[in-house]
């Protein structure tokens, strides 16, 4: 049984069919990419599967459990984490605190215990700081351990979001254009990070425009156009698919 299975998923905004009847399945521990021209419905698809939008029709199963229509925080409880295409970093916090928030569900969130600063809680806090620092080093943010989020450059913020998502210890990680706006060196870093994350058994679903990155990384690729699935397969299969080529209108795939 696939880890994530999406069946006949549709989402309409008024008369606009952003996602139409999309079906796909992702196996555990693989890197699965969703590509397509601008406005193809990739981000809408992401927002449906991560609970930000409620599907108009269709089913979503995660590890055999029906999860369609669950709220984002409920999905997070089931091991779903994500990053955002347009950065969603909490600029009112330090970089490390952003990562620490990622571990929210793994912590004692009692208000009263926090106010009284019980020793068990303080011990967990210092351990958490160490874990967060570890994750920041993992994504290459060593120099920002003491930085405030609003003092960091764009490329670093992209990786900060990744560290925050990893702090949630996800089973399924959605990355919405992780390389958008990055220079080739930074993109190479993302490439390496995604590989390392997937190698730990985390299932990664990726939306990305950088074809080189997608073709390198993905075990499987889904191609959307005008909200519909036009192709699905390995990099090789998708690359030679005539419909995909015409959707990209000669763009090199």
């Amino acid at each position, binding site marked *: 049984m696939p880890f994530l299975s999406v069946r006949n998923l549709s989402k309409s905004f008024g008369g606009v069919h952003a996602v139409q009847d999309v079906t796909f399945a992702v196996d555990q521990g693989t890197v699965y990419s969703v590509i397509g021209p601008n406005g193809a419905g990739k981000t809408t698809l992401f927002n449906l599967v991560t609970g*930000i939008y409620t599907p108009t029709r269709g089913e979503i199963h995660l590890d055999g459990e029906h999860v369609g229509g669950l709220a*984002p925080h409920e999905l997070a409880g089931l091991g779903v984490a994500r990053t955002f295409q347009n950065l969603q970093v*909490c600029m009112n916090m330090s970089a490390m605190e952003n990562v*620490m928030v990622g571990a*929210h569900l793994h912590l004692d969130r009692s208000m009263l215990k*926090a106010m009284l600063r019980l020793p068990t809680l303080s011990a967990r806090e210092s351990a958490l700081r160490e874990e967060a620092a570890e994750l920041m080093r993992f994504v290459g943010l060593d120099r920002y351990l003491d930085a405030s989020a609003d003092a960091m450059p764009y490329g670093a913020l992209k990786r900060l979001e990744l560290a925050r*998502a990893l702090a949630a210890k996800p089973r399924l990680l959605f990355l919405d254009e992780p390389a958008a706006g990055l220079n080739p060196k930074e993109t190479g870093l993302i490439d390496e990070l995604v590989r390392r994350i997937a190698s730990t058994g985390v299932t990664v679903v990726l939306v990305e425009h950088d074809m080189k990155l997608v073709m390198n990384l993905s075990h499987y690729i889904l191609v959307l156009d005008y909200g519909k699935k036009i192709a699905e397969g390995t990099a090789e299969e998708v690359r030679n698919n005539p419909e995909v080529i015409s959707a990209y209108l000669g763009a090199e795939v």
Partner: protein
Amino acid sequence: MSRSSRIGLLIVIAVLAVLPFVLPNAYYLDVAIRMCINAIVVLSLNMLIGFAGQISLGHAGFLGIGAYASAVLPTHYGWPPIAALGAGAAVSGLLALLVARPIFALRGHYLAMATLGLGIILAMIFRNETAFTGGPDGIAVPSLGLFGYELTTEKQWYWLIAAMLVASIWATLNLVDSPFGRALRALHGSEVASQAVGVNIWHYKVAVFVLSALGASVMGSVTAHYVGFVTPNIADFFHSIELVTMVVVGGMASVFGSLVGAVLLTGLPQALARFEGWETVVFGAILMLTMIFMPKGLVPTLTARLRRGD
């Protein structure tokens, strides 16, 4: 708690400890007590406004509930003051819980309007239920007895409230730097990102709203006992605005900013007492100037400047 917070707390404790010995007379002690009371209310309001990013323009309503519970229940029904304080807090907490659901479906201006409405309704009840509240003339409040002791002198009041203030600052500093506090700040920073890591934002908005309502209610009760008299002015719209101004001027999401805001804007009307009636104008001007020149508030702006100066 960071090192600077710890130092800040120690400074506050030191100042509070020597204050009664250096203040020349009871009038100054009275002003100091009012500053401390306001500081506690502003701390709890700052949790809501500054840290969680949710506005309330009706918070004086909860002060009113606490104050009138402490006035009405002992006077009309013979309740012990501490039970009346508890009852006021319970009512405030429940009311906050009840209205939170519809209110936090709203954001921004709409949330401001809804909380404004809540405050105005409460103020109207206190003004018009003359049989219980004494209406616009107000109502006398019996003195506060605690475990057989009666608080009578200004000094005793000062120590009680100074201790409450220190405890509040300590608890707030702890809370801000905890999973709960980070969740609050995160939903302020990005609702969608905090949801994506599992923060049930609705739960946190309600929790902090109830917490700040409880804080206001308890301090309303304490104020009532301290002053010995309550009028509907305590629940007034202007009082709500005063409290929000203290949060903004001192610094949103700044614990010590709350303190500075409360001290400055409680002291100011005393200093401006000669210009009867013009305090309101000065208040408005201060709020405007802060928004224009120091939108982050006094304490965050100054600490940032100091850090850059290093």
